């Protein structure tokens, strides 16, 4: 699996794409394949303050509900409301149209604690091996 360069990644398989003070957050391709068909996304409230690593919402697939964690702290400035009617956008385009929310970053230094594309690609490949058993 390939992942966009320039994004930062968490060990819980979220990504953040930063532009200036704003960060767009979504689930990685690895996360969506593990979840399977996504049928519901609980979006955070616009204006909500989140701390790095806090649960921002829940993504539910046919199989199970899964908590999702924000890669960085800040105030939610926008949510992808298309996910309310088309939650499978995350399956179809996890790193693009399937973004979940945008936040105004509180502390850009937090990004340094996240993985870059090289580290995450290796991390996800190992997780995939483990999942195969």
């Amino acid at each position: 699996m390939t992942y966009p360069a320039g994004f930062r990644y968490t060990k819980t398989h979220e990504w953040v794409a930063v532009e200036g003070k704003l960060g767009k957050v979504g689930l990685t391709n690895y996360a969506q394949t593990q979840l399977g068909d996504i049928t519901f996304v609980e979006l955070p409230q616009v204006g909500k303050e989140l701390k790095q690593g806090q649960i921002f919402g829940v993504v539910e697939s046919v199989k199970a509900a899964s908590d999702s964690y924000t890669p960085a702290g800040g105030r939610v400035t926008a949510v992808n409301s298309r996910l309310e009617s088309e939650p499978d956008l995350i399956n179809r385009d996890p790193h693009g149209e399937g973004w979940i929310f945008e936040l105004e970053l509180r502390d850009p230094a937090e990004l340094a604690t996240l993985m870059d594309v090289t580290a995450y690609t290796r991390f996800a490949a190992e997780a995939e091996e483990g999942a195969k058993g």
Partner: protein
Amino acid sequence: MNAGPNLKKTPLYPCHLKYGGRIIDFAGWALPVQFTSIIQEHRAVRSAAGLFDVSDMGELEVTGDEALALLQYTVSADLARIGPGRVAYSPMCNHEGGVVDDILIYALSRGRFLAVVNAANIEKDFRWMEALARRYPRAQVRNRSDEIAQLALQGPRSLAILQPLTPVNLGGMGYYRSIEQVDVAGIRCSILSRTGYTGEDGFELYCEPGDAPSLWEALLEAGRAHGLAPAGLGCRDTLRLEAGMPLYGQELDDRRSPIEAGLDRFVALGKGPFVGREALVRQREQGRSLALVGLEMVERGVPRTGYPILRSGEEIGYVTSGTYAPALDRHIGMGYVPPEFAAPGTAIDVKIRDRLVAARIVRLPFYRREEEGK
């Protein structure tokens, strides 16, 4: 999602890997939850056909002069009129009227019976039936689960796929009928029955474990032109839920009775003594305190097992199963509420992570297939 080294493997495990199955732990078995996508596999079964490995199911063979007497005492349905070639579904109750398991009983030739039980309950059921068999010295119970593999071919194209592979005429075979010793693609099946757990037409095939992979391949090959897809546990659950069929461990357990679960037509109170009868008679006379219902979400949210059900702010029951229903394109579930709230249309709330989400009671099943010329 790690399959883990201690899981039991069915004889079809290599086939699951070959077809890209994502393996999970299901009641101690390494089985595929999906091959491509749960929704795709679900739709394949509704529109064409799906092939399932159900070898995890247990098979308890009951033989001897008192085999029927033992079974009549063990289960709540009346088996008096089932002869060879018939299959019956029945709850098997404990003395309090709770459900030990829900099982299929095959009446076979020469007075033998095969009880097909849920994977998670094999040991429990075997011990339970052995204990009851002490009252029936001329009945024997054997656990043959490891000697039998089972495949389920389900969906409207099942007959068209299976018929060319066997000399036996399947078209005239009714639902819940079985045939013994049938060759399918040159492979001997000890039993072939028109049964299933998906709400569709379909067949279940029992064979030697060593023959299961060849049978799997032969069926997939024959089904390719018909749109047959390998299908996993994920759609096994969504299909049965849409069809309103209870799953042991969710809708049924040691505390809930078949009357609460709405399985009255499998409870023959007048057939003579059976385990749990007194408790069930009392429940029928005094009324049940809970009733199994179908529910669908009105607001956005997914009902999941164990979530509380509320009415006017007061907790009245709980969700037993919930999922996305591909046939309806909405989130549905089943659950228990007091009978006074069980009428279709009743407004309820489901408590999802501290949030009350509006739902309503609906009639079961959620999905019913169109009967072909019956």
